[in-house]
């Protein structure tokens, strides 16, 4: 494995960058889209039920099948992978946004509503800071899930660490498989650790506990 790394380190680095880029772009599109859809769902229960059902169906499609279904429209490569990953993330993020909102105590919601300030200001200044720890918690799960599913994007020429894994499987090369698996898990663990730290900071802020007692 060490020999493989020492020879192919540039290719491995490139795969890491590609994998992180796939994950980052997917999250970059997923988060605002989920926020927008959540706002729509907030205003219509019927629409919410239909859309949630549709997103659950998408989530149940195996990734390779979903990527393949998108190829006729978007071709092979990164774009198709990002669209597929963004679609997968929606149900997780929307459920998380809903749960975050529901986690705000009813008395806080009533107190906020009774102030006579706009919904936007209320959301921005009162609800969002209180929802933030839950939102980051959800983002952590989505990030790890995206890191994993992005591996399959190699099958549609989108690159990433999945490329090394697929090569390893085709060539029966254990070093390749091990490098890919260790790097995917390692990256997921690092991002998980960073987001746990952020979640704790957000929780301290939301509860006012960033101030020493």
């Amino acid at each position, binding site marked *: 494995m060490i020999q493989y790394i020492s020879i192919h380190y540039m290719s491995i680095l490139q795969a890491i960058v590609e994998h992180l880029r796939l994950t980052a772009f997917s999250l970059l599109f997923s988060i605002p889209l989920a926020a927008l859809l959540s706002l729509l769902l907030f205003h219509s229960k019927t629409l919410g039920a239909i859309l949630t059902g549709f997103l659950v169906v998408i989530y149940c499609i195996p990734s390779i099948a979903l990527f393949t279904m998108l190829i006729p429209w978007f071709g092979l490569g990164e774009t198709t992978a990002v669209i597929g990953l963004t679609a997968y993330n929606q149900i997780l993020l929307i459920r998380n946004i809903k749960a975050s909102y529901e986690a705000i105590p009813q008395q*806080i919601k009533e107190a906020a509503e*009774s*102030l006579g300030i706009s919904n936007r200001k*209320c959301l921005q200044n009162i609800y969002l800071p*209180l929802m933030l720890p839950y939102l980051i918690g959800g983002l952590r799960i989505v990030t790890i899930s995206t890191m994993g599913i992005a591996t399959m994007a190699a099958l549609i020429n989108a690159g990433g660490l999945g490329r090394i894994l697929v090569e390893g499987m085709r060539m029966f090369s254990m070093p390749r498989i091990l490098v890919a698996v260790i790097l995917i898990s390692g990256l997921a663990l690092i991002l998980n650790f960073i987001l746990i730290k952020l979640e704790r900071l957000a929780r301290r802020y939301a509860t006012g506990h960033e*101030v020493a007692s």
Partner: protein
Amino acid sequence: MQSFLEYKDIQFTYQTQAGHTLNHINFSVQEGEMITILGTSGSGKTTLIKLANKLLLPTSGAIYLKGQNIADIDTKQLRRRMGYVIQQAGLFPHMTVKENINVVARLSKEDIQEARLQELLSLTKLPADKDFQTRRPWQLSGGQQQRVGLARALYCDPELLLMDEPFGALDAITRYELQQEFLALQQETKTTVLFVTHDLREALMLGDRVMVLRDGAIQQLATPEELIQNPANDYVRLLLQIGRG
């Protein structure tokens, strides 16, 4: 004489419930008057005051504020004219005491009046020092949290104060102190108040008039003296007997 606040044949039904939560509610409140609303859990007390600031909308009937149907008043404007204090104070945990009190002015980008803040801290008997103003709700006692909640409700100089069992979660001594202080404050500011409680002593001590509510219907609305001397029915009589031990 025009009433300050008038509920006209109000009915209210929760979508998830069969039957009316409030049934043909008719009463009026004069300016500067404090009405205490007394009843057991589920009698419709909280629902009744939530209709005043449109946190809930009536199924039928209308509420008039200074002769104007509140349905015709912009909700934000209406709520700015009213203060709302609830049992757990509903303070925003990520904001300091000062930010909680002047939250409306701050979020509306209006001038934050330092003098008003000092006046409210003094009125609600809270420390005025910077250290206290920068504390978070979790660093306050239950009584202090309620005082901050009251100061926040008073910040915009409300015409009507809606109070939903504000002292319900406090210990007996703090509760008594706050009742006395609130009574003095109300007499000083002459604010009109709808005050929900399930405590008979509190209702009799604070209210210019006491409304007894049962299963969404008004049983009696009278001064504390009238209520004691002439209970309207057996339910009010029983409530008085139990409440006074």
